[in-house]
Structure formats: C-alpha cells, structure tokens
C-alpha cells in the first residue's frame, strides 16, 4: 500500500529515549523505508556523512549540548529538517526560518511538517 511516507529515509536526532522510539514508530507506521537515529552530535554527523537522508528531525539540545553542528551538516548537504526544542523562543542565527516543533508536540503536526519538507514524491514511491 502506498502510505504517506513510503520509501522515505528519515534521520532522527533526539536524546530522550522514549520520545525517540515513539517518533520512530510513528514514522514507520506511515511507511518510512528507514528511520535512523542518533542521540549525540558526533553520531549524527557520522550518519549524515555516510548516508543519504530525505529529511531529518533534530533536537536542539542533546544532553546539554547544542546540536547546531548537526544543523550545519544537514544544511550543507541540502537535507531539509525540522527542529524540536523544549524552549519557547530560541533558535540559532541563520536558521530562524526553519520549521520548529515545541515539545511536547502533536505527532500529527510533526508528520505534517515532514510531508511539507520532503521533495516531490519519488517515482518508485
């Protein structure tokens, strides 16, 4: 069946284990081909260097560390992403026009944003 996110490869960078698992499940339920996750800046950058992603979900703050370097790596490769944050109104300079979800957020809202960010549906999708 042709689900909403069929064939998509999504990267999730998130340090809250249960939230990470749930986002994985939500995206897998919608047909994502692969959902890959990282919980540290180094792991995330390693994955971005080695694989191609259609889109990413990026937590701004990984265990007290800013994940700005991951945002830069994604931007450098043209991978669209949505930023997840617990704070009300902070965003890195240079990324103020990026999509943001404020924790806790509706999973439907996250999916809606990802759909909007993804490039046109691939021919095999």
């Amino acid at each position, binding site marked *: 069946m042709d689900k909403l996110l069929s064939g998509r490869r999504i990267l999730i960078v998130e340090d*809250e284990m249960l939230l990470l698992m749930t986002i994985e499940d939500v995206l897998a339920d919608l047909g994502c081909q692969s959902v890959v996750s990282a919980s540290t800046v180094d792991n995330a950058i390693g994955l971005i260097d080695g694989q191609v992603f259609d889109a990413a979900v990026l937590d701004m703050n990984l265990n007290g560390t800013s994940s700005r370097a991951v945002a830069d790596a994604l931007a450098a490769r043209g991978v669209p992403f949505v930023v997840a944050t*617990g704070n009300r109104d*902070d965003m890195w300079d240079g990324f103020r026009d990026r999509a943001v979800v404020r924790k806790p957020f509706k999973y439907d809202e996250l999916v809606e944003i990802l759909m909007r960010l993804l490039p046109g549906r691939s021919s095999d999708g």
Partner: protein
Amino acid sequence: MSDEQKDAEAKVESFKNKLGPFVVAADATRMAMVFIDAKQPGNPIIFANDSFLSLTGYTRQEVLGESFNFLMAHAADAEALAKIEAEFQGKSDGGSEIRYRRKDGSEFWAALFISPVRSEDGDIVQYFASFIDLTALKQEQAHSRQLIDELNHRVKNTLATVQSIVWQALRATPEAKAIQEVIEARLFALSRSHDLLTSKNWKSVGLLDLLNDALAPFVGGRAGRIVITGENIKFWPQAALALSIAFNELATNAVKYGALSNDSGSILIEWKMDPTAEGRRIDLRWREKDGPLVIPPSRKGFGSRVIEHGLPDELGGTVHLDYRPSGLLCTMSIPAPEASGNG
C-alpha cells in the same frame, strides 16, 4: 604634561580646595564617582576618584576634561541617552542602568546616580555622579535565567516523554484514541502554563496574561467569541498553574458541550477586585451564552473536580459551577494575592 592637562590639574586643585573635606571623602570612597562642570558644554569631567579610575581602567589625565558620556558603550543609544538626561534633570529616582565601556574595550553595566551641586545662590555649578558596578548582578541574573531555561527544557522533555509513554501504552488499542487525545490536551495545557511562568522567570503571572494564554488554543476560528476583561492582577506561580489548569478544563468543556460547541455561542470572562472586611477579594465570572441548551452532567468528571475542589483548595477561595439552561456560569471568589498589583 601638556598645558591643557596642567590647566585641568590646576582646576582640580582649586576645586578640591573649595570643597575641602567633601572632596577628600569622595576621593577615598570605594564608590566610583566623578564631578562634572555644569557651566561648560558637553558636561566635562573635572574630578574623578580612584574607584572610578580602577572601574574604567583610565588614568586621571585621560578622564579629566572629557565629556561625561565618553564612556558609553553605545554612544548613539537613544534610550540610554534619555535615561542619562533624566538623571541630570533629577527626574529619575532609582538610578539608571547604563552600559559603559572600559579603556580595554570590555563593557560593563553600572547604575548611574546624578545629583546637582548648587552654589550659595542656588545655581547648579556642578553635578556629582556615582556609579555602582552591576557586573556581578548582571552575571547573577544571566545565571538564574540559564537555570530557569534548563529547568524548562527538562520539564518539556519530561512532558514529551510522558506523552510517548501514553502513546505507546494505547498504541495497540485503536478505540483508545479519544483517551489519548484527552491526556495530550491536558499535557499541552500544562506545558503552556510552564512557558508562561518561564517567560516571567517563575516570579508571578498576571491574571489577564494567564487567561489569554490558557484560552489561546481555543480562539482559533472563533474570533470575538471569547471576551476577557479585567486587570492583570499578579498571581504567584503555584496559583497561576492551578488557574491555568482550571481554565483549560472550562474551555474544553465549552468546546464539547457549551458555548463553543455551536457556531453562535460566546464566553464572557470578567473580574474585579472587591474590598471586604476580610481583605480584598477577586470576584471572577465565566459566563457562557447562546450555546446549546445546558443539561447538568449526570456525573461529575475530572474537569469539574479540578474546578470545584482542586482550585478552591489551592487558592483558599470558593468556586461554584451553575449549569443554567441558557449557559454555564462559573463564579470564583478568591482572596487577592498579597501585594498584588497591575502590570
């Protein structure tokens, strides 16, 4: 030493001689101080004590004769210039916070206090300016802001985690979708209250701000149907959280069964402060009208428990739900928070 400097030094000497012990005291105090000539344009500095020199990193020669504002970090900062002018005019009573720049380029905040020095005829001949270094205070404020942000970050992650636990627990049960939505709506309301408290540094929250915030998610597409009027009376955080939760329950109820469940109903929320023998009280009315005919619920749910029992316990007041056929009326009578003000 140039003639100009010699001239400035000589002026300082004569100034010291004239004011005598006062200047000796100004010289010795640990508070940074300068004297300014009121008779010359640009308010030149004619005396600076050692504390001022160690605060700013300049030598006495570099400071004397300079315009009073030469130390400003942002010379064109209109707001700061207005504050300094108000100090000169004696129109500021608490001192003004100004950002200054040391000789080495580093910036610091100082509270500035200016007083006129009058001659026997009452003319202002000099101004006397003192500076309190606010560096430590500003660092302290930034640090506590950081702690509050960190706390908020933790709270938000915890709420997001609770939300995922609920999602995971109910995932295999499609008919539980409604339960999941009810829980999520309450988690989101709690999350918004935390945002509001965080934005106020967890000090206090105004009733008007609190209501606008709590009802914001319900306003979408219903412009003009929710009217909120009253003063922004400040509540302490714990009470603000309880009120937020209660208003969220009332609004949720209105969407499901009340004035927001059809296309024409509206809600008027108003309050006033009442002086009584036992002290000031706030009388608040949440009045719904033009909704569907109201039928009192056969059993009371979590929402009405929060409103009728939880809230009065928290605030030490009384709360009453009146299921009038024409529209729900919720009345609250709560003691005004101590030292509550507007703003």
